[in-house]
């Protein structure tokens, strides 16, 4: 029995030693579509929250010509099962916008949904694999915690404020990331092996690439979308 435990630690140690990070950028070519300003006149609370006009977040191209809000994740090649990270993610409703606009988390990982606005919001998940929910948060500062049992990427919307929409990617494993304001992503701690990596964007769809993570533990993969 003792032997087995030692062996287990050894194997675990070896996997950690041969785990690597996959990094990359999501480039964008062409002219980005001009976002139309969101009409928030319907709710004075929303209108007051912004001094400048707000544009939709469906396509956000960064200053360095990269695409924001792309989920990059391991599509296939993983073996075994994984436990959900303990840390909670926050999904906020602020200024009648969802922050973040796109997020990714693991099956079973907790998501805290907050309302930071003094107006009625509801979070309606248009999920298919997971049961749909449609919960109201009529008061500022309200919180609720959600977890998801199945892998899928789905839209979340607010019925009261039709311009509000966000996307949540749920995965069976912890190897996923969302591109930020420099269009880069890092998938950490991937065991050595060959993987199919997929990038997903709400408007431009998916792109796939294969990557080999070797014992040295570093790999790069870039994606590019066209307008």
């Amino acid at each position, binding site marked *: 029995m003792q032997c087995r435990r030692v062996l287990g630690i050894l194997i675990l140690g070896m996997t950690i030693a041969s785990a690597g990070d996959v990094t990359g950028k999501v480039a964008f070519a062409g002219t980005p579509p001009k976002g139309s300003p969101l009409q928030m006149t319907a709710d004075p609370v929303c209108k007051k929250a912004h001094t400048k006009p707000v544009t939709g977040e469906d396509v956000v191209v960064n200053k360095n010509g990269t695409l924001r809000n792309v989920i990059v994740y391991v599509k296939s090649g993983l073996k075994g099962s994984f436990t959900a990270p303990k840390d909670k993610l926050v999904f906020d409703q602020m200024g009648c916008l969802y922050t973040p606009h796109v997020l990714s988390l693991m099956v079973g990982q907790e998501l805290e949904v907050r309302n930071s606005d003094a107006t*009625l919001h509801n979070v*309606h998940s248009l999920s298919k694999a997971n049961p749909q929910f449609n919960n109201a948060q009529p008061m500022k500062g*309200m919180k609720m915690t959600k977890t998801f049992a199945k892998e899928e990427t789905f839209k979340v919307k607010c019925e009261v404020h039709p311009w509000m929409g966000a996307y949540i990617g749920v995965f069976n494993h912890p190897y996923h990331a969302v591109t930020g304001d420099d269009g880069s992503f890092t998938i950490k701690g991937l065991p050595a092996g060959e993987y199919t990596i997929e990038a997903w964007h709400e408007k431009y769809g998916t792109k796939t690439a294969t990557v080999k993570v070797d014992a040295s533990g570093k790999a790069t993969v870039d994606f590019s979308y066209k307008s």
Partner: protein
Amino acid sequence: MTSYFDKRTQTPVETRKYVHFYVAFSGLLFLGTVWSLWDEVVSRRPWKDYQTEYNDLLAAKYDSLALDAQASVDSAAVSQATEAVASARAALSAEEYVTTNERKTDLLEELEIATREWRFARSRSDAAYYQYKKDLAEGKDATSSKAELDGHDADIAKWFESRNNLEREIAGFDLILEKYTTAVQKAEVELRALLGAVAGYQAKAEKQRQSPIAIHQVVKNDYEFTPFQEVKARVDRCQTCHLGWREELMTDAPQPHSKHPAPELLAQHNPETFGCTPCHRGQGPALTPGFAHGDEDHYWETPLLRGNDVYASCNGCHYNETRLKFAKPYVKAKQVVIESGCYGCHEIKGFSDLPKIGPPLYSITAKATPEWIYRWVRNPRDYSPHTRMPNFRFSDEQAEAVTAYLVSASRTSEFTLERPRGSYAGGSPSEGKRLFEAVGCQACHVTAGFTTVRDVRGTSYDIAPELSRVGSKVNADWLFDWLKNPRHYNADSRMPSLRLSDQEARNVVAYVMTMKDERALDKFSVALDDPDRIARGDKLIREYGCAGCHLIKGMENEGKVSVELSDFGRKKAEQMDFGDTKPIQAHGEQEYLANDDGTVSVQHTWRGWIYGKLKNARLFQTERIAQKMPVFEFSDEEIKLVRMFLISMTRDIPLPAHQRAYDKRFQDIEGGRRVSMRYNCQQCHILEDEGGYVLAKYEEAALGPPPIPETQGAKVQEQWLHAFFKNPTTIRPWLKIRMPTFQFNEEEIGKLQKYFLGMAHQDMVIRDYASVQPETDYLRPGRQLFDTYQCAKCHPSGPVSGEGAADLAPNLAMASSRLKPEWISGWLLDPQRLQPGTRMPQFFFDGQGPDESVLNGDANEQIRALQTYVWSLGRRSGTPIADR
């Protein structure tokens, strides 16, 4: 050479020996016995092997589960617990325990003696008492008997006392002993808890291996009638081989061991009492696969039903139901039979009261030209490839005669347009197109550019005429009249009125008339008023049974032209004529094969005949045998469904005790289903988990027609629903599609109402909702919550000025005249449960409302307050909601 027998005859009878015969015959007898034993025990008992195999298979599964459980056990904890058990057991040999135990044993012996003496003393006392009483009664001196009695009573008290003392002492020892025994028990329980799952699986595996090999049979007494109308029982032994029918672990096991794939059906038809053959057929008492399934028994009339064919058995008890939740193929088969109008020509039990599926042909010339009628009669699918009208394969001459009759009958019609000719003029095709696409025409009618609803519905035929070429069929005057009021032309039409204004109708006419048949067709020039031709048409129409589907002048009372199908499933392949077709392998996958030489091969079985007939109704026609059944264009799936339905057409019905009870509620529901089926409610609404085909048109379900949940009857007030069916009003102004006016009659409305109420488990009660007063105590908190929860963000609650932000949800001023008050509470508690996908969010979780300052945040109280306030809204304003 003289034979052995000749020699024997020469031997005197007295000296003849019989020993050879005895030896030979006893040898034969011995062998025969051995053979019969072997045959009885080994060769004819495949079920024994199956049971052994099953037991081994299941035991192996338990073993592997035990191994899995073992792997997840914490071994350190187990060894610790084992040690604890050992030390607790060792403590049992400690001095205190041993001596106490010995002393307890001694005391128990003493107690036994004391108890015995106490009992004896009581008996003696009884005897003395009798003597004493006897002396008294006889007037003798009772002193001595009294003294004896007293002596015995003193003994009783003495021994009783001694018993009590002993019991007390023993109880004291027990306390000491228990200390040791409970320690052992506790340690053992802990060990068992650690190994619990493992031991449990091991025990199950062991039990499975030991389980006896036996025949499992179900006997259903008084199950059915024999063909001679005698009551007979049914015996099923299927579960002797199919042991794993309810074993979760055997889900993926091979046959005959696998789990039944439809446990939801077994919940209704428990195989332990209902058996298997009522649904699956086969030979219940047989114990070898070939005979039990009936494949090897050529004379067994009801062999096993395979695949979807098993659903045919539903019909035995459920023949008068059109929707069975767990028998989708059966429901679909019935739908195809009803929608294809099979009952127009064939008598089918349970289908006699259905309306004709085709339109009346009384005034056909008011709608279409003789030229179009001729082409339609000649080949309907040429004009409309998905029509339900089958092809009679008339010759040109026959089609001309039929047309002549229809046109001449139509000339005497009294139908006149409601508005003067030309009233349709002045419409805008583009505006008409917008309306056509918005108000809901596409929920039933397919056009060249929009086939979504047909595709979603998944049938080979359309439920309403395709309109891609309709501009070349109808005339604009008729169309205008039709759109304004469909029942004017056809009093029984299922086409509803969309409440189009004159101008809207003109626009739609203008658009629809642009959809023309662009093909170049031959000119049609035939003298239609030739009396001979008309007479020939009359004869043909009667012969081919056109009146089965259409109302035709002078033929309203024609009988059905073809055979009755109510017992068709009992027909034998030997009774069927396969014409010039060639046989292909019976019971194989291949059902239909068009050969290179122009002939067709089908299986020469009952099923094969049906397949061929439904694929091509004229398939078995020969030079000598003419056939009249028109050709349908069923898909392969539909053919198989209709065939399954025909398999069900037997008179083998279990006795009423084995059937489901058709109570009033069921009759209400079924009555409503038929109305909903007739008017195709499911094209738009999801009803009983089916339908909503038009929803495919919308990006989001909330933008299409709302579903009708099972709770609908509990939702809306009876009076309101009645008024709504009579004259639909706008509830959801954000929807472009309109609920049409179906011109239901009172009977139909009553049926629909009872249908909704029945599904919601409610009865029709006339209730005065206007007298339901809001609870005044709850009005103020209700108002406060209404504001805090910002209900008005989506729900308007008074007259609406126009399209605004508050146009997202129904107007709450309608609530008190539309909704049932109890329903409002249920809706507020969990809207998604009542209507999955609704835009209404849930506000209350875990018995709490978001605002804890009102009514202590208690969800039920807050809901009561909100309901009260909502109920008061329409009543207070007193403003009628404008119909849109």
